[in-house]
């Protein structure tokens, strides 16, 4: 079939004996064929993202319990949220506290782990796997494990503390401690992911920089602060951006470990949103909450982008 082998001759051969419009049809097909390949993903974006976003915009302006027809209330949901729902403010505050506790600890720990793992020592692959393991562990399993670690009377942690004669606290039932206990679990689970990002960043730093610094007599700590950290600022920036977004949307660890309690001391934004929608059936209010969170996350990201000029170093 030489006709097929030679693309230039294809139209001529193809048109013999068939309609002259065939050439145009082939050209048309060639031009638009790509759309066919992206159709599944754009159909999905339309159906599962674009339309839901429009629905959600309307919902946020409505009062709807999921059964009766929605009632348009204008900005009523937002007014209620900001002026008439102390629980909303408490969950927002808890979310901020969670974020402020978890992000610095996770980032510093991950950076430290990456520094440790970026060396040629025996068994390094095992260490990396060990530090990363909690990140891929199912949150339900993590909840179980830590529930028994934190258990006040016969728990593993207080059992170990009692060996040293310390009477351990009630980690998850003390309203002043519960959020910190959850943050500890979250840091333990979450450090593996930024560690891998940092490790990739560290491995991208040219070794001759360190060699030059050594020749100039720089100490280890000097190299860390004058070479490693400045060159790692893009990685740190990326980690901070993603950490803020995921941390503000924390749900699993709260749902599994505390259900927002005791009291509402560990109830965070998404957990409250989940309750508002699926326990209280206030879908309009929940949609409005989602929009406010979206704006908060957008603002935080924007501020971080603005601030990066001051400290992120692109070599």
């Amino acid at each position, binding site marked *: 079939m030489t006709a097929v082998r030679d693309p230039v001759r294809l139209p001529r051969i193809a048109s013999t004996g068939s309609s002259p419009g065939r050439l145009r049809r082939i050209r048309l097909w060639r031009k638009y064929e790509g759309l066919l390949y992206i159709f599944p993903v754009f159909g999905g974006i339309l159906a599962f993202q674009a339309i839901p976003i429009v629905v*959600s915009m309307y919902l946020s302006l409505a009062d709807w319990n999921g059964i009766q027809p929605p009632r348009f209330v204008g900005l009523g949901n937002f007014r209620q949220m900001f002026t008439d729902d102390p629980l909303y403010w408490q969950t927002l505050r808890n979310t901020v506290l969670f974020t402020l506790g978890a992000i610095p600890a996770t980032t510093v720990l991950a950076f430290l782990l990456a520094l440790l793992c970026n060396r040629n020592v025996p068994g390094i692959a095992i260490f990396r796997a060990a530090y990363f393991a909690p990140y891929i562990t199912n949150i339900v*399993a993590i909840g179980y494990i830590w529930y028994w670690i934190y258990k006040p009377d016969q728990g593993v942690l207080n059992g170990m503390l009692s060996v040293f004669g310390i009477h351990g606290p009630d980690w998850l039932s003390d309203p002043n401690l519960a959020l910190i206990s959850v943050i500890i679990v979250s840091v333990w689970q979450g450090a593996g992911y930024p560690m891998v990002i940092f490790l990739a960043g560290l491995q991208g730093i040219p070794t001759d920089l360190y060699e030059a610094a050594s020749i100039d007599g720089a100490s280890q700590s000097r190299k860390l602060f004058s070479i490693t950290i400045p060159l790692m600022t893009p990685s740190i920036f990326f980690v901070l951006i993603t950490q803020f977004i995921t941390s503000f949307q924390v749900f699993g660890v709260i749902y599994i470990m505390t259900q927002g309690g005791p009291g509402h001391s560990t109830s965070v934004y998404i957990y409250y949103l989940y309750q508002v929608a699926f326990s209280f059936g206030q879908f309009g209010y929940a949609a409005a909450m989602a929009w406010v969170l979206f704006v908060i996350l957008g603002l935080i990201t924007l501020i971080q982008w603005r601030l990066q000029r001051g400290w992120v170093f692109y070599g």
Partner: protein
Amino acid sequence: MSTRTIATVGGLRRVGPSQRLLNVVLYVFMIVLGVLFVIPLLWMIGASLKEEGHVLSSPPTLFPLHPQWANYGQVLSLIPRFFYNSVKLAFINVVGVLAVSALAGFAFGRLRFPGRNVLFVILLATAMIPGVAYLIPQYIIFERIGWVDTQLPLWVPRVFTPVFATFLMRQYFVSLPQELEDAARVDGAGTFAVFWRILLPETKPALGAIAIFTFLDSWNDLLGPLIYINSRELQTLPVALAQFQNEYFSEITLLMAGATIAVLPVILVYLGAQRQFVRGITLTGINR
């Protein structure tokens, strides 16, 4: 002055005594940290093999002298349905996401068509919106079309909106040499043949990374099954496990055996494909 010359690549250079001491200290530190990271997981496995009532013995032990494998037998008789549901959903999600993202990534990376750049920007823009924005409206739409209490919401939206995966595939397709494609075209291969037979096999590393992350997402999904599934027989393993906690509250050994079974497939996948895993994270910075 030998202490000064160490630093980077380690091991190759001569090392001074103070540096050697520091290395030992750091190594011990790494081991301590490693133990802290892994011991809760080991404790879970250990507890799953203990006799009921002997889990919290003092002094605390990690592994029992006489492992009770029967615990697993007991749990396995409770969970086959949930295990099957989780495996099935993970399989559909992985295959579906790979297919949809590879097709779209190929089109964005290798084909010309009107509106390509605009559509690609739209695709990237949707990645900026956090998933929570879709949570409520998606639920309402699925409720309207009768998808609540079916497994459809657990895979259809995921399979048809693989935004990060499409981005990753596009980057990979762009990087492949044009000669590969030209040779096939001269031989008369159509566009789909170029995609399927010539270019797709070259993207295996990207496909591997996407498969692993999709598997993880699907397997560890908590919120989706929690919201959409009411019928017990449709439930996934992690959520069924969370519900066990209420029923088998006092039987820690069974709970831990169940938790171990839920974690094991993920650990195995990770150990089998560690390199792809790390490559996937560093390539895309995928997050949930």
